[in-house]
Every structure is written in structure tokens, then in C-alpha cells.
């Protein structure tokens, strides 16, 4: 199938970017990123700087890839990162617009590459259970109600790709932050640090250039792991309690 691609090209963080149009011939069996690989291979052969885009595992688990395709983070498929999107979605003559995540918290580094280290700083603020290596009790000494273990796992399946931020009209990082908090706060092991964790993570999230949550729910819709905005409600509740406790 013949495709027309409009790809965001931006040489560096402080340079103005623009859409550049490319034409390519793709097979329906290719993944979306393999289609871009072929475009890049062709550009390289012609001595042109290829399109910079980040991707690693190509199995939808590492969270490295991410781009906005025709206005939708990770493209049109539900529960799918862009590396798992396949070209059978498209047809001959289609036009595709490809952009990086757009958010102040994720500055563009080059073309489709963005800097997501703000997520690391949110986790560093409290997204963990402090347990010194070797000091843990026997694993079965801490039974966990199965329902909570499953809910915790649902939240923990976040891959940190940033699609939630890219989808949010406020570029809020609330779904990401809440998912990490929920993963830990739903488990008995996470209780001792629960409220401190919530305060510190929210403080850091606000200090990074993310917007606030106004319950649009666009994040849930874009999340390739289908993390539900219930986790945001849980975080908000914990945050209120934490503020009361902090007095």
C-alpha cells in the first residue's frame, strides 16, 4: 500500500520543528515501526538524516516507544503501544500524521524523541517500599488478599510510556503517578509509607511541568495497559487523608 506520511522533524531541543512529508510503500504484515524502519533505511541510503524515534523491546512492555498518530497517542488500536500497531490497520492512499508526545513535562530532544526523566523523579520521590536487601521476612509471612494483589498488579502494569500525559488536555501526569501509588498502597507491605509517599509524589509531580487533573479521562482511553482512572480517585482520597494527618 502507498502511504503519505507527515512526520514531525525537529533537529534539537531548542530548534523550531516542522512536518516533513514522505511517501512509502508498506506491506500489511509490517508493524508501524517496521514501516518507519523502511522509510529510514531509504533516507540513509540517500544520505539523509533518518527520523529519530525511540523504541526498544517492540513487544509493548518496555514503554520506550511512543508517538502521536493522527492525533492519538500510540495510534488507533486499544491496549496497544505503537510498536505493536500493525499496518493492516491502514489502506492504500492513507495519509498519516506522526508527532512526538506534546507536553511541557516532556521536552522534545529530537524529532519524535522526548525527555521523560520527570517520571523517574516522581518515582524517586516515593514510588517504592523501603526495604534493605536481605532484611525481608519469609515471603509467605505476608499473605495478601488475592483481590488486592490483582488490583495492585493492574496498577503495576503501567509501562511509563507517557501516553496518558500526551492524551491529557492539561498534560497531567496524574494517571502515571496514581498507578504507581496504587500499586504500592494496595498492598500490606506498602502501608507504613503510604501517606508520606502520596504527599511526596504529588509534590514532585506538581514541581515538574505537568498540569492538573480535571477528570477528562482521556488518559484512561489512551493507556496501552488500560489502567483505570479509579487509581486517580484512590490517590485523591489518600492525598486528602495525608493532608489531614499532616495537619
Amino acid at each position, binding site marked *: 500500500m502507498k502511504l503519505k506520511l507527515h512526520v514531525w522533524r525537529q533537529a534539537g531541543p531548542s530548534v523550531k520543528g516542522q512536518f516533513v512529508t514522505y511517501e512509502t510503500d508498506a506491506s500489511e504484515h509490517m508493524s508501524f515501526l*517496521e514501516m518507519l524502519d523502511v522509510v529510514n533505511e531509504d533516507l540513509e541510503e540517500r544520505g539523509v538524516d533518518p527520523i529519530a524515534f525511540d523504541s526498544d523491546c*517492540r513487544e509493548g512492555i518496555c514503554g520506550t516507544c511512543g508517538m502521536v498518530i493522527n492525533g492519538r497517542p500510540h495510534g488507533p488500536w486499544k491496549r496497544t503501544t505503537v510498536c505493536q500497531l500493525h499496518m493492516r490497520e491502514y489502506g492504500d492512499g492513507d495519509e498519516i500524521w506522526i508527532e512526538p508526545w506534546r507536553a511541557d513535562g516532556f521536552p522534545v530532544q529530537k524529532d519524535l524523541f522526548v525527555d521523560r526523566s520527570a517520571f523517574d523523579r516522581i518515582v524517586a520521590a516515593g514510588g517504592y517500599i523501603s526495604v534493605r536487601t536481605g532484611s525481608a521476612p519469609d515471603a509467605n509471612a505476608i499473605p495478601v488478599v488475592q483481590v488486592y494483589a490483582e488490583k495492585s498488579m493492574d496498577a503495576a502494569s503501567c509501562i511509563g510510556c507517557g501516553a496518558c500525559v500526551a492524551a491529557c488536555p492539561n498534560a497531567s501526569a496524574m494517571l502515571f503517578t496514581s498507578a504507581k501509588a496504587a500499586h504500592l498502597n494496595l498492598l500490606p507491605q506498602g502501608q507504613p509509607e503510604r501517606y508520606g509517599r502520596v504527599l511526596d509524589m504529588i509534590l514532585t509531580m506538581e514541581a515538574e511541568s505537568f498540569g492538573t487533573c480535571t477528570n477528562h479521562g482521556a488518559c484512561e482511553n489512551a493507556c496501552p495497559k488500560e489502567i483505570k482512572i479509579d487509581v486517580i480517585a484512590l490517590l485523591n482520597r489518600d492525598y486528602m487523608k495525608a493532608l489531614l494527618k499532616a495537619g
Partner: protein
Amino acid sequence: MELRSKVPSGPIDQKWTKHKFDMKLVNPANKRKYHVIVVGSGLAGASASATLAELGYHVSCFTYHDSPRRAHSIAAQGGINAAKNYQGDGDSIFRLFYDTVKGGDFRAREANVYRLAEVSNEIIDQCVAQGIPFAREYGGLLDNRSFGGAQVSRTFYARGQTGQQLLLGAYQALMKEVHKGQVKLYNQCEMLDVILVDGQARGIVTRHLVTGKIEVHLADAVALGTGGYSNAFYLSTNAMYCNVTAAWRAYRRGAGFANPCYTQIHPTCIPVAGDYQSKLTLMSESLRNDGRIWVSRQVDDDRAAGDIPEDERDYYLERMYPAFGNLVPRDLASRRAKDMCDQGKGVGSTKLGVYLDFEDAIQRLGADVIEARYGNLFEMYERITGEDPYKVPMRIYPAPHYTMGGLWVDYNLMTTVPGLYAIGEANFSDHGANRLGASALMQGVADGYFVLPYTIADYLAQAKLDPVAEDNAEVRGTLDEVESRIGRLLALDGNRTINSFHKELGRIVWDNCGMGRNATGLKDALEKIPALRQEFWENAKVVGDGESINQTLERAGRVADFLELAEVMCLDALVREESCGGHFRDEHQTPEGEAMRDDENFTHVTVWEYAGADTAPREHREPLEFENVPPTQRSYK
């Protein structure tokens, strides 16, 4: 090159305890005077960084990703083994040790494997305390599943995302120490060389992938947790960025490289679809718990799976290995799949595939149970192939997946270069010639949480470590070499893309040093690879500059190193005149087509020493002794 394994004396079950007592300690107040560099932030690197920092060392952790959480450990699906015996099915540390030595086809160091089995239980404790949401039974206790090569249920899992959850646990522990200031984290920073001063590893040279800045980082010791080299095959289940550069640069600085021909071909991957294919996707081995593998009894059978009646199907693993059935170790499952395809019984349009069928399991347990166990894998399969595995059997084919070979390390995980350590998949230590399922995660975290943080003290407490300045001649020399190599790569202005070289190399390695190897093919590869390498330096093309993100330049450096490694892989495969584990020499097989070891002549580790750019590497041997698990021909019948 001297290979001293430093395995402690005494009975196998007391070696590690005794060694921990015998090793020198660095007292708590002195630990802060030491600085350790950890390269890589996967399971081994992140857990080592976090634990070393908790102990009080200053740590610098480097990753080429935009976040430490992206490391490829994240892609491990099935689970992690431990000898907890929570199922009460007769498991023990000794049994896990036994299974691992046997699974490795008697080519691993017994003492290392025993230690691995010993710390496996502490790993589960540690991970649960960190909040890793392992699967649980309704009573709230931990659940287990079984995996290939074992007859007990000892695998802990978090859905099909066990690697992700373990890595996130280690990442979070790492970020906790970053927050405290005990670890300095370097994202998007790739190690390009190791710096030796007076023969000791004292630092690394890195290139920042966004700014292109080349920098020196100095320390008292360096640990490489930089993963394996399956991408030498071009198509593998490894992530796109996985490469051998860090380990290879260490090799070129004098670290011995052990058993490079021990590579694992994973039996359950989605078959190749076309030429443009960038990587292969693994379907967790845990699927073999409930899926049945079969092909048609007829050659060139073009019928759809559903049209082939039961009595015309060959469930060949169940037929050939009744005791283990579909759960035979990976090397056997892979080789038998290849045999079936070689006989013309392959399925799918390329005929390079076999069926993995869940029909019986769905009838027995119900689709909902199967969905709970493997839902995410089924969904991934459908996204990639467009076929629904609840209705039609999956098609699978083996693919390069893991490398048992790697930098040679002693019992303390130190390479032949003093002060340079290798952890996780980057070393060769625990899996012998074949790794069992759910053991990679176990080894990564064992090395990082429970071994390196203790053994490194023994070195730091005794080594003479004079201060090193950045203008030291050896430091400057290494920096200059890296800069000139980057310059050479950027100057490449030929007619072929970097990717085309990688693809061609991958085909040579896959055809000649893949699932089956023989002297003719290996010798052929040993002629083709140097020629391809020469062409690379004459005719490759790198576009762009060195001052911003340049993925072509990054790939060029990695492919250049694969072009060197591949030659040593083939050389290693050629001199190992036997079949063992993942290394199957066509010349050495039993009449039934099983691997035939030659214990008399090959019960050793082969270690290669770099001898110069155009000189054959020197071969060394570390003899292996089996005092606790006497070598037998592996039988899974």
C-alpha cells in the same frame, strides 16, 4: 591469562557461607570512601546499584535508555524460580541446583549454581517485601507454576509480566537511592570503553546519546550488567538496542570471554513474517504448561489446522519424551521443531513453524482459566499475527533469545581484569550450555542483590587503589581511542547502510552457528565474517553528526563490535567438538539425534583472550569438576 575460579573448599552446601565469612569486609564507615561504577540498569545492574548504595558505597549507574526502567529484563514473561517448596512437591535447594546443572548439560561450575539455588529463596522474600505483586492463591499465599526442565512447581510469576515487575522493583529500589544521593544516575549515556590503570579497572568512557559528549568517569571498581549478545543474529527476541559493546570492549582490554558459542534458541517465538522484520517476539515458555505442540504426520500438508483430524497429528514431544512431554528443556524443544520443519512438516505460509495448540486445555479448564493465565500473551499474538489463538492453534518457531556465554568471571563475579565485574546475562557463570526457563531473572537478581555487593568488598578491602587523575596517561589514552573510533565511524561514507551489514551478519551466524552447527559451515562463516567486517569499514555509510541524537552512529558502533564477536562465536563453536545444550554439532549426535557430549575432552570452559585486531584470540581452559551431580547423558524420556 590465569583462570583462578576461587571456588571455596568444603562441602557444596557450605561453600558460600564459609566464603562470606572468609572474605575481607569494608567497615561501614569506610564504604563511603569507595566509588563503584555500575553499567546497565537491568535486573542485575539496578539491584546491584541499589544494594551497594544501601551498604554505603557511592555508586554511579549508567544506562543508554531514557530511564533505567526500560532495560530488557523488563521483557521476561514467565517467571522466576526459587527452591521455596511452597507447593510441598519435594523441591529443595539441592533439587534446584541439580536441575540447573543437568539442564546446563554439565557445563556450568557447580559451586556457582549451588549458590544460585541457595539465594533463590532470599530473592523471593526480598521481592515480596518490595511489593512485587506476584500471583497469589485465594488464601493469600504465593502461587507457583511449572516450567521446562523441572518436575516440580517452583516458578513464581506476576501474570506474564514477571520480568517487568521484578525490574520495576529493582528500579524503584535504585530510584530510592538516587533520591538519597547515594547513586548518581546517568540516563542516555552509553559506555564505549573501560579504563584500566596499572592493570586495574578504574573507570569508563561514555558518550551521551543526546549531546554526543564523550566523557571519562573514574571509580574504584566497575561492574558490567550489560546483558547478552543475541542480537549478533540480527533477528532475536532481544530488544532493538541490546548489544555486546560494553562486554566486547572489556574483552579487548583483557577480560576473558567464555563459551561464546553457548547461545539459547527459544522454542516458542512467533515465526518470521517478512524481510523487513526488525525483531522476533517471544511467547512465554509457560504456554507449554497447557499448550500441546504438534505438526501434521504428512509432509507438505496444506490443510488448515482444524481440518487435520486427531489421528493425523503428531504430538511429537509427547511421543518422544513421555516423561517431560511438552515441558522438555528449551534446546530439545527447539531442535525437534527444526527437525519437523526440515522434514517438510512445518506449518504456516513459510513452513517454518509448528503448532502450539490450546484446544484441549480450553476444553479441560475453560477459556476463562486460560485467559487468566495467558490472556496478555494471547492478545499479543493476535495483534501481531491477526489470528485468534483461542480458535486456531498458535504457530511458533525457535528464535535466538539468551546467551549463556559471556565474560568469564570467578566465584566472586570478577573478570580476569582486577576490579572489573560482570553480572547477570553479561557473565557466563551459572547456566552452562543451556539455561532453564525462569532462571535468567533468578541469576540477574542473585548477582545484583546477593552476590556482588558482598564479594566486591573482598577486592576493595585488599586492592591497592591509588588516586587516579583525569589527565593520567592511561585515562587520556583510552579517551583518545574512543574519540578516534567515533571519528572513524562518522567518516564512513560508503554505499551500504549499517542495517544491511547487521542483517547480512545475522544470516551468516544464524545459518552456521544457530540451532545446528558443523565444521564446514563454521569454517565458511569464519571466512565470510572477516570479509564482511572489512567491507563494513570500507563501504558502510553513517549519516549525521556526532553532536546530537544519531541512532545510525550508535548502531554502527554496535554492529562493528558484533562483527568481531561473531567470529569468536564461530571459532568457539568450531573447537568445541561435541554437542552440549544449546551447542549442537551435527557431527556429534546419537543415532536418535540427541546431543552427544564428550566429557573426556570437553568438560571445561573455553575462555578466549584478545590478542590484537587481526590475530586469532588465544584459547584457555578452565576445567570443570562434578562432585555432586555426576554427568550423565541428559534424558527427558
